[in-house]
């Protein structure tokens, strides 16, 4: 149960940073890089590359697999061999990406190159040469690898390197809780909860949704001093099903009375993920029996003929009080599509990307109960163009959640201060409409 190492490739498929691959031959990382680059040449879209690539061994070597995840212009590869869970590797890559984001802010080939020493230290601390993940909790990592900004600050202010030794806490992991630093101090004690719910659905030709589900998560930003022990209760926790939690949450307590009891990590983390389905109480096994209504109506009419096609779409918001934000609608027009000519109602804009052949209509806001249209035509150089049979719409609604999840109260014990609390809701919608 160990991965073989980690390789980070830049946009051109060249390695920027990699672990030392102690126990393998020097060619081992190279064949994995080749395997990925080869696979990339065989697919039309980079995201279609199989995430667990089979890699044949060199000469007598055993074959292995290459797990990979993209991040901006980078691609992180994780070669694994033997009896390993690919999810283990994939989860590790995801975690490492999160760590990089935390340390570098924006993760790209150039920030990586600029901070290679930090990245190297991070690799050393997060992955042992035997492939066992070591310390991946950001709270604990900050004790042993100084984030570049802090390091630079120290250097410029003190002008002394000795200070960086003391900056890395001389007593790391002193905290009995692996995800939280000991003795934290914040001037103002605050904690914010961001409830984000995403509705994903497929709507059939007849306008009835074929499948839909709402998954939510509670993003938390915690800036509390000391070791606060929190108890969070919801007024309507019954609505939440299939919850999964940050390791800090005491699971037995949740099973008992649906209260979240936890000592939070410092900074940003995802406290809880859940699924909301209105039917969950009556039919726990059948998902989506009663479906969440989609907040817009879309009336598509598409005609594709031998030389091109026409589109006429009307979108109506079903929301009566709130506005829809960041609305977008996409359609793949098919090989040979060109010469698009479209009209949008006020407030919208459209674009056609000749490379990906995707037609896109955007609106920054769709006011409550309003209706908008998008119509026009395109010409195809290929007879009988095969365009996608589905529109993809995405949008967001601020201050709204499908589940109407409400936090009842947050109690704090173990510390004496009274924290400032904030709660915010947001909904994202990603619907596929077939025509």
């Amino acid at each position: 149960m160990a991965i073989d190492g980690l390789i980070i490739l830049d946009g051109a498929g060249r390695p920027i940073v990699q672990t030392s691959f102690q126990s393998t031959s020097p060619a081992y990382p190279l064949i994995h890089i080749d395997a990925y680059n080869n696979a990339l040449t065989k697919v039309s879209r980079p995201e279609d590359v199989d995430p667990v690539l089979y890699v044949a061994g060199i000469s007598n070597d055993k074959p292995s697999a290459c797990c990979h995840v993209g991040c901006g212009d980078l691609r992180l590869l994780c070669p694994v061999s033997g009896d390993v869970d690919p999810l283990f590797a994939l989860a590790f890559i995801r975690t490492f990406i999160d760590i990089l984001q935390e340390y570098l802010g924006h993760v790209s080939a150039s920030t990586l190159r600029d901070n290679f020493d930090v990245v190297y230290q991070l690799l050393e601390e997060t992955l042992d040469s035997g492939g066992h993940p070591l310390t991946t909790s950001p709270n604990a990592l900050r004790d042993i690898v100084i984030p570049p900004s802090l390091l630079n600050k120290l250097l410029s202010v003190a002008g002394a390197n000795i200070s960086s030794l003391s900056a890395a806490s001389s007593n790391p992991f002193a905290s009995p809780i692996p995800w939280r630093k000991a003795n934290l101090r914040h001037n103002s004690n605050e904690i914010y909860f961001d409830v984000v719910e995403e509705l994903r659905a497929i709507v059939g030709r007849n306008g009835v949704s074929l499948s839909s589900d709402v998954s939510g998560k509670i993003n938390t930003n915690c800036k509390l001093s000391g070791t606060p022990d929190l108890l969070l209760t919801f007024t309507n926790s019954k609505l939440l099903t299939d919850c999964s939690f940050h390791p800090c949450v005491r699971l037995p307590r949740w099973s008992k009375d649906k209260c979240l009891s936890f000592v939070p990590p410092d900074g940003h983390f995802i406290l809880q993920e859940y699924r909301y389905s209105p039917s969950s109480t009556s039919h726990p096994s059948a998902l989506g029996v009663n479906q969440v209504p989609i907040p817009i109506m879309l009336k598509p009419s598409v005609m594709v003929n031998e030389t091109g096609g026409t589109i006429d779409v009307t979108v109506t918001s079903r929301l009566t009080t709130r506005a829809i934000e960041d609305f977008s609608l996409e359609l793949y027009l098919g090989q040979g599509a060109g010469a698009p000519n479209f009209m949008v109602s006020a407030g919208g804009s459209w674009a056609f990307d000749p490379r990906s052949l995707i037609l896109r209509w955007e609106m920054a806001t769709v006011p409550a109960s309003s209706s908008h249209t998008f119509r026009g035509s395109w010409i195809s150089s290929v007879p009988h163009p095969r365009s996608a049979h589905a529109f993809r719409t995405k949008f967001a609604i601020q201050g709204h959640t499908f589940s109407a999840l409400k936090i009842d109260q947050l109690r704090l014990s173990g510390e004496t201060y009274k924290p400032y609390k904030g709660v915010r809701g947001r909904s994202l919608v990603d619907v596929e409409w077939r025509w």
Partner: protein
Amino acid sequence: MSSQAGQDAKFFQRGKIQEFRAELQAAEVKDKKFIKRRTVLKKIVANITMGNDMSPLFPDVVQCLGTPLLEIKKMVYLFLVSYGKSKPDQIHIVIPRFLEDCNDRNPLIRALAIRTMSYIPIPVVTEALTEQLRHCLKDRDPYVRKTAAICVAKVYTADPRKAEKAGFVEMLRDLLLDPNATVVSNAVAALTEIGDRPDGVFFKLNLTIANKLLAAIGESSEWGQIYILDSLLRFVPEKHSEADVLAERVLIQLQHANSAVVLTAIKILLYLMNYMENRRLIEHICKKMGPPLVTLLSSGPEVQYVALRNILLIIQRRPTVLRNDVKVFFCKYNDPIYVKLAKLEIMYRLAREENAKEVLAELQEYASEVDVDFVRKAVRSMGRLAIKVEPAADLCIKALLDLIETKVSYVVQEAIIVIKDIFRRYPGKYEGIIPTLCEHLDALDEPEAKAAMIWIVGQYADRMDNADELLDDLVYTFLEEPVEVQLALLTASVKLFIYKSKSEKAKELVHRVLKWTTEEIDNPDLRDRGFMYWRLLAINPGVAGEIVLAEKPAITTDSDRMDRGALDQLLLHTGTLGSIYHKNPEASSREFPYPAARALADTPALNPNSRAVLVPITRTQLPPAVINIPGPGPNEPGNQKPEPPLPAKPAPPLPTEDEDAAEGGGGEDDESERVLSPVAVQGDAVADPYSGLDQLGTLSAGGYSADNPRPKEDDDLLF
């Protein structure tokens, strides 16, 4: 910061060894704050990362180890990790430094020192490390202890017997009771690594330790949780109740946010279910497993893919899981192709009478998509659906005919291939559509489709007035056709002749084909068959008719199911590469090294169903000395008796053909499986036309040719 960032990038310029050496020497004086040293070392490290050989600098860099600055120490250690093992003649100069650091006041440096030493597999270093490790395993700082635990595995690799003698295994065992959860999980990881070695000591858990480990899980990192959960596979329940208790505690881990933790927990639950008796509890667990699996589908596509491949296995073994959730697997237009294909396969598996209509409607939708590969598989799935769910067959045929009307070449060809099988599954029911199919004869240019159509023409030549004309046209290009088509043509013309032996045309046709086959064809297979037919027809045309037109066994989809015993074994590897490629450990051990291929151990608690299909495992290299590690603390009496070291039973009690008998006897948890595939086994002459494709000893028993997923090259994994 940005200005410095720009400078850093310059370190990547190719540096010269001489230059660096001079700079390092210059840094020895007048470098109070070690800025010069830091800069040079940074350049050197940058060069290492670019693959430039910096090893000649070894003595110079090692000099810097005395610098009392963590950052510099780290870089020197990085250098040592890269070049230490290639310098066995110079490494001795570092040892005193290592020892010094092993006793440093700062726990970070202590841990760093032993970690680096463990990366350098040179005897002098290992020896020095062995000495230090003993203290570090008892260090007061948990960071050092947890690092030391992992180092033990490395020392063990270098010399197993010596490490055992030094008592490291026992020390690791003691760490299982450490108050710090991270130390516990690292000790588990190290013991697992040791236990997985063919020459390693056995790592087994008793109930007390298993419970203790589960208690530590709450405070572990996600990786620690995975190690701990995974180690539970090393606990073999002796009583049903033990499995029950443990499963209840593992169940709660399904609520973890980390997908790998969830999948590992599911693996353990599936394992423990083999040792359970209580039907209610098993059902309860199955019900609880579904939602977390679905939740994995809202993660990134790569996680979805792994989850889907595993779901495919799980629903075959435990059909109640996700039974009603076929909608969750409907494909979205923007899903990556590998996700779509994996979903398609699951949709087919979950299809039954109640949802067949919905599934079919989706498949029809997919048949109009852009990706050719996906469309083909969607069409093929329609045919399989018709074969699997009898009440849906009418609708499927209609849908397939609609597709044929579209005249899209690859859709038509794919449809004809599956219709041929539907004819065989439901003899005498759909032959009326043959004329429609014949209209598209000219569109067929792929061998498989062409062969399928020719088979149809030959098989039903008695019902078609123009069969002889059609065949005559097809035979026109006989010599240029691929073997597959030639074989089909040969058989079809013989069939035609048998049906219409009076017809001059048929006689002339078969004669022509037989002559070609025997005189002009080089392929021995084809030629021999030609001779055989010829002689049959010459000696006794009546018997020939009986042979050639013998009643064919009906097609079923039974062989789509994997063999149960193999499935059980694969599920022990849930989430591993084997489960992705659907290869059983033994078949793939040549491919993917399974350090210790897992098998269910036979104990009184083993469920009779699981026992019936038990696949024993033979460990090729037995450990020279089987050391049973009893848990720390009071020894349990149960654990002291010599346990059956391995379920090395001579032969599986029941080979796969008897699966049905076995299930019929005590098939308690397989009733639902029955419901899932309403296609009853017809007689014992169940032959599957596809099963011949499955001769390589791999797992998936038949199905469509590519239904035998293998590590892919260019092909897809599914179907």
